C-alpha cells in the first residue's frame, strides 16, 4: 500500500493546487533558461544566416554589433581586389521606430548590396526576395506586416514582397531587408526644412571665407545636393562583409586585410563571440541570477508545503510508529510526496511551456540539455524540501497518539 498516494488522494485539492503553483514557478525557471537560449539564437542568427566569411569594420572598433562602426562604402571595391575574395557586400543596419496603422512599428532596417545581394539567402516563408533596386522590402512575420502591404518610411513607400519567420535582431525587433541605398535613404532621411537650413548654413559659412568671396560660383554649388560636394564624404556603411572563394584560407585573407591601418577584421566566429560576450553576457548573468532565485524560492515553498503536510499527519505518523512501522515507511511517505510534487510540477511546467512560450514576445528555446539539468535540480530540491518534514516526523514520539 502506498501511503503517499493514499494521502494525496485524500487531500487532492491542496496537493493539486500546490503542484500547479510549483509547476508555474518551474515554468518560469524553464522559460528564463529558454529566453537566454533564445537571446543567443537571435543574436547570432543574422551573422550565421548572412553567410559572410570575414567582416571588415572600422579600425580599432569591435564592429557594428558591439559599437558604432563607420567605414567608407567604397572600401567594398578595395577588398574585392584582395586575392581569394569572391564577393563583398555592404553592411548597413539600424533600428527605427515609426507609426504604422496607428501603432508603433519597430524594426531593424537591414541593407542588401544590390544588385549582388538580392536577399536570395534570406529564408523567405512567403512571397519572394527583392527583384528591383528600390521600394521593395522583405519583412519578418513578427512585425505583423502582410504580403503586399505598403509601408511609408521617410519620403518613400515600400511594398512588402517577402515574409520571413524568426528573423530578428539582437534586440528582438524584426528584421526588414531593403537594398542598401533604400536602407541609407531611410537612415539619413531628414525633413525638407532641415535640408534647406543646412544649405543656408553652408552658404553662410562660405560667405565668411575668402574662397567664397572670390569664387561666387561656389555659392551655387554649396546650396545644391550634398552628393555633388567633393568636400562632403558620401554616406558611410557599418561594415563590409566578404565571402571568400571556395578553398581559400580565411586566416590568410584576414591577415592581408589586417595590415591596412584603417580597418579591423573579424571572422564569422569572432563576430558571434563578440556578440555573445557583449550584450548577451549581461543578459545571461541577469537571467541566471533570476533562475537561481526562483529555484531557491521553489525549494523554500516546497519545503514549507511538505513540512505543513507533515505537520497535518503528525498524529498518523505517531500512530504508525506506535504500530511499529519502520522509519523507512515514514520517510517514504514524506519523500514520495515531495518527489511527486516536484516531478508533476516539472511535467506541468513543460506542458504549460509548450503552449505559453511560443506566445512570448522574445524567442524561447528549450534545449534537452537544459531540460535535463532542470530535472536534476527539481529532484534535488524535492529531496531538500522533504528533509525538514522528515526531521519533524523522525522526532515524533509514538506516545503522541495518547495526547
Amino acid at each position: 500500500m502506498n501511503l503517499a498516494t493514499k494521502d494525496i488522494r485524500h487531500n487532492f485539492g491542496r496537493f493539486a493546487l500546490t503542484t500547479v503553483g510549483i509547476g508555474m514557478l518551474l515554468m518560469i525557471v524553464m522559460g528564463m533558461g529558454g529566453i537566454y537560449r533564445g537571446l543567443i539564437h537571435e543574436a547570432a542568427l543574422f551573422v550565421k544566416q548572412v553567410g559572410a566569411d570575414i567582416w571588415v569594420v572600422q579600425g580599432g572598433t569591435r564592429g557594428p554589433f558591439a559599437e558604432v562602426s563607420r567605414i567608407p562604402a567604397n572600401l567594398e571595391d578595395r577588398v574585392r581586389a584582395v586575392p581569394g575574395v569572391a564577393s563583398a557586400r555592404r553592411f548597413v543596419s539600424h533600428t527605427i521606430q515609426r507609426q504604422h496603422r496607428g501603432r508603433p512599428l519597430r524594426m531593424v532596417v537591414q541593407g542588401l548590396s544590390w544588385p549582388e545581394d538580392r536577399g536570395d539567402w534570406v529564408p523567405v516563408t512567403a512571397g519572394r526576395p527583392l527583384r528591383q533596386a528600390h521600394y521593395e522590402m522583405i519583412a519578418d512575420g513578427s512585425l505583423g506586416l502582410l504580403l503586399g502591404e505598403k509601408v511609408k518610411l521617410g519620403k518613400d513607400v515600400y511594398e512588402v514582397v517577402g515574409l520571413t519567420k524568426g528573423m530578428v535582431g539582437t534586440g528582438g525587433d524584426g528584421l526588414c531587408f531593403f537594398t542598401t541605398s533604400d536602407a541609407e535613404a531611410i537612415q539619413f532621411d531628414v525633413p525638407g526644412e532641415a535640408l534647406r537650413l543646412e544649405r543656408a548654413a553652408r552658404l553662410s559659412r562660405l560667405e565668411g571665407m575668402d574662397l567664397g568671396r572670390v569664387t561666387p560660383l561656389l555659392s551655387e554649388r554649396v546650396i545644391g545636393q550634398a552628393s555633388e560636394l567633393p568636400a562632403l564624404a558620401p554616406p558611410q556603411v557599418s561594415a563590409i562583409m566578404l565571402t571568400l572563394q571556395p578553398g581559400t584560407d580565411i586566416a590568410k585573407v584576414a591577415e592581408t586585410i589586417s595590415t591596412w591601418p584603417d580597418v579591423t577584421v573579424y571572422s564569422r566566429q569572432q563576430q558571434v563571440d563578440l556578440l555573445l560576450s557583449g550584450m548577451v553576457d549581461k543578459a545571461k548573468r541577469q537571467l541566471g541570477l533570476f533562475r537561481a532565485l526562483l529555484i531557491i524560492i521553489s525549494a523554500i515553498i516546497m519545503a514549507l508545503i511538505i513540512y505543513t503536510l507533515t505537520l497535518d499527519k503528525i498524529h498518523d505518523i505517531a500512530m504508525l510508529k506506535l504500530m511499529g512501522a519502520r522509519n523507512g515507511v515514514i520517510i517514504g511517505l514524506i519523500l514520495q510526496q515531495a518527489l511527486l510534487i516536484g516531478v508533476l510540477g516539472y511535467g506541468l511546467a513543460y506542458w504549460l511551456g509548450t503552449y505559453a512560450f511560443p506566445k512570448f514576445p522574445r524567442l524561447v528555446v528549450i534545449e534537452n540539455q537544459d531540460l535535463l539539468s532542470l530535472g536534476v535540480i527539481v529532484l534535488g530540491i524535492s529531496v531538500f524540501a522533504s528533509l525538514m518534514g522528515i526531521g519533524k516526523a523522525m522526532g515524533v514520539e509514538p506516545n503522541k497518539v495518547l495526547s
Partner: protein
Amino acid sequence: MIADANNTPAVEAIGLTKIYGSGNTEVVAMKDVSVTLAHGEVVALLGPSGAGKSTFLTAIGLINPPTAGRITIGGQPVMDADRALVDVRAYRRQHLGFVFQKANLMPFLSAMENVSVAMEINDVAPRDARKRAMELLEYLGVADRADHLPDALSGGQQQRVAVARALANRPSLILADEPTAALDSHRGRQVMELFRKVAHEHGSAVIVVTHDHRSLEVFDRTYEMEDGELRSHPSSP
C-alpha cells in the same frame, strides 16, 4: 481464559516503577507494579486521572520504558528497567495491539486499508493483508463499511475498525486505553464484550483501562490503580 501449552503467561510485569524528573521535581508515577496475565485473559484497570494507568499501559506497551522492573511477554524478557532487550518497534508491530479512546484511524485510508496497513508494515503480502483485514472486519461486523473512509463511519464503527487493526497481527497482548469513553453505554458495552470475545477466541491477553464501572462483569479480573500503585478491585473474582 486460554492456558498456554507450557503455562507461559501472556505477559508478566514485575516491580514496574516509573519516576519522572529528579530531586525536588521527582514524581513517582508508578510504584512497584507487578501483574501476570494468562493468554485469553481480559483485565480491567480502573483508577482516577493521574493514578498512573497510562504510565503502566505505555510501559507495558513498550512505548515509555519504566525506570525499574522487568517485562516479559510470551515468555520472552523484553524490557529490563529502561533497557530494551528486543527491538521494541519490531516487537510492537509483531506482538502488541493498541486501541485508544479515539479510534486514531488514518483519515486517508479506508476501513479495510486501516486494518491491512498494520499487517503490511509487518511484511505481510498486500493480498494476504487485505484478505485478513476483510475477515476481521466481517468478524467485527463492519465488513459492509470496508471501503469507507473513517469520516463516513460512526464512532462505534470506527472503534470496531480500530479493534480489527489491533488484532491484525495476532498479538499476544492488546492494550486498550479508555476505548469506550467516546461511545454511549450501549456501544461501550458492545466494545467491551468484543474484547472479551476476541481474547477468548484469539487467545490474546487484553488490558483495558476504563472508567466505566457498568461493564466490569465482562472482565476476568479487575485492578485499580491509585497513586501509582496497583491492587485488586473489590469486584474482581
